[in-house]
């Protein structure tokens, strides 16, 4: 794992993730903007598509391996790769080694990529060693820990430090804040009623805490929660952490 503040102006290859690319491109814009403020240059390889997690999660390891193998070669000359997603980052860092366990060459590549890949909040706080990115957002914000981010990557404090440094923000901790939102990949369409019931619990906690905004690091959790908010007309708005950090008065 690369540590230490980069000496010169660092270059980051952005791994936009398929969901952000197609559904929430503004997340990408915000990542680029925030990194730009910190004098980090961002490059983007348009050959990227998906890390393969949907297939892996559903038990189709061969299909996942095919997609992941291709992914391994896309960031060869990047010093840092940054992704605005805990689940995609953990797919590569935690699950690629399992996926390629029987393939020494690809395993080595996967471990190498995993050592250069960072989730967005992790990159800001642990690599750039920055917590205040110059953002302002005077509203009540609840933070949702996405499961892969929290339990596969162990990232819990970094997003909170970044949020607390946003001027005017009031960060609310949710009762039972460690509860899964219910997305769970293909679980969301295999067990949709349970998935929705879990989201209802999460949103009930957010509105009970008086949150105006619900912030998370994962587009997957956010699209699931936003979809339910919209269906039920709840007085809440979702926001990706990158969008929050890009906010200025």
């Amino acid at each position, binding site marked *: 794992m690369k540590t230490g503040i980069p000496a010169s102006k660092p270059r980051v290859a952005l791994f*936009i993730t*398929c969901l*952000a*690319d*197609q*559904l*929430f*491109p*503004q*997340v*990408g*814009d915000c990542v680029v903007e925030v990194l730009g403020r910190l004098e980090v240059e961002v490059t*983007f390889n*348009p*050959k*990227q*598509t*998906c890390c*393969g997690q949907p*297939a*892996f*999660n*559903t*038990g*189709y390891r061969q*299909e996942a391996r*095919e*997609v992941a193998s*291709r992914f391994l070669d896309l960031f060869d000359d990047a010093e840092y790769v940054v992704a605005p997603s805990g689940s995609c980052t953990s797919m590569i860092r935690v699950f690629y080694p399992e996926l390629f366990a029987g393939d020494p060459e690809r395993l080595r590549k996967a471990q190498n990529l995993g050592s250069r890949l960072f989730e967005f909040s992790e990159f800001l706080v642990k690599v750039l060693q920055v917590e205040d990115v110059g953002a302002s957002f005077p509203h009540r914000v609840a933070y949702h820990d996405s*499961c892969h981010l929290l*339990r*596969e990557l162990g990232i819990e404090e970094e997003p909170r430090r970044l949020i607390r440094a946003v001027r005017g923000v009031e960060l609310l901790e949710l009762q*039972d804040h*460690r509860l*899964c939102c*219910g*997305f*769970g*990949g*293909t*679980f*969301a*369409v*295999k*067990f*949709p*009623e*349970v*998935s*929705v*019931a*879990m*989201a209802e*619990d999460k949103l009930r906690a957010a509105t009970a805490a008086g949150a105006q905004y619900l912030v998370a690091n994962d587009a997957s959790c956010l699209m*699931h929660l*936003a*979809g*339910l908010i*919209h*269906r039920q007309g709840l007085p809440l708005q979702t926001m990706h952490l990158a969008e929050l950090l890009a906010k200025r008065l």
Partner: protein
Amino acid sequence: MRRTPVHSGDIHERARWALQDAHLQEAYRSSTLRLFTHRLEAISEVPGWQRLRDRAHALKREVMEHLDCYLAQFASNVEQRGGQVHWAATGQEACAIVREIAERAGATEVVKAKTMVSEEIELNPALEAAGIFATETDLGEFIVQLAGERPAHIVAPAMHKTRHDVSALFAAHLHSQPTDVPEELTAIARRALRERFARAGMGLSGANFAVAETGTIVLVENEGNIRFATTAPRIHVALVGIEKLIPRLADLAVFLRVLGRSGTGQGLTVYTSLLTGPRRPGEDGPEEMHVVLVDNGRVATLADPKMREVLYCIRCGGCLNACPVYRKIGGHAYGWVYSGPIGALITPQFIGLESARELPFASSLCALCREVCPVKINIPDLLLCLRSRAQERSKAPRPKGSLASERTLMRLWAWAMKRPWAYSLGGRLARLGQRFVARQGWIRKFPVFPLSRWTEGRDFPALAPKSFRERWKEISK
């Protein structure tokens, strides 16, 4: 020969049914929250908690990797102290063994301590068929027995029942006065059970741990019924899943410290009993002690290097209390004896993945179970392993509203993801298509899987007018 058939497909129906029952939802919500909270408080008192978990995991690994030796040592020690050891490869064999012991002893009434293994092998109906009546003496199991149901939780079998449910059950079966005061309900049960303890010719228990070094059965409880059931009747039979072995008496210092805290938030349960052999001259206790060692799918699991870890489970129920899916769908949705995250592993392993194909998928993989497990079983990892085995061995049922099989959809998806041009084309086609169904940036209904299932309960955000890569391309020019 199952009492209630296992319907792997029915987890969906049963889950839906549980979600619609507000009564049931509240019972599960409050009980699991209480136990989860108690656990947090209890472990905060133990400074070396993570080290204890590591130690417990290591001890279980040692046992599983040498289970044949430990079992032999255990059996020999039981026999040396006057106990009798029986080996049952299947549930049916185990039932036959217990029945024969009861018949030889002339016991027509049996008092039972809570044992999940007995549920697994469906002992009660097998004994009943031979004219031997078994009474559950654990209060939760007693309630569930009166209701004709299976336990809904590994540690709290009647978790799904409120005091009003219990009052109604007791009024119907024991002819007691309705009451919703817990102490009064307990007293009613105590009176009813007291007579059964007195009459029983045989006591049947499970075992929380079986100590190889000494041939000792270890039993933990809060009610005292296990102590009564295993010491008052003339015969004691212990049903022991072979994974219950631990090497030495001293290892209890690890296991007893993690078991209670993980399951109910107790430092120690009210009673902890160490039973080694039948009574010796001049002592109280049963004249005969039988230990029935049960396989019933455990050896096959042991032989599987990846899934072997499932056998480390010490049945604390902690993962059930943590699981956000369990608390919504309840224990009965899982379709068999063991529910929750560990149930989703044990059931396919013991009865076959083909009979429980949907179980490994009934999880959002949030991994909270792994965090709370006292023996550090990597439950999500094992669920993912079963998912991939399921897909290798058989075709997934075709999703409702799908134009193709799940496998075909995945293959198509993989094909497109390997080709950026196809991926981009797919995006552009989707943007075109969504003009017909998207309103103000949202899709409320869609006829085709997977969006069809998504939009049953929530809206789906329309694809953004331009993808990030399209915008990047424009900006870069």
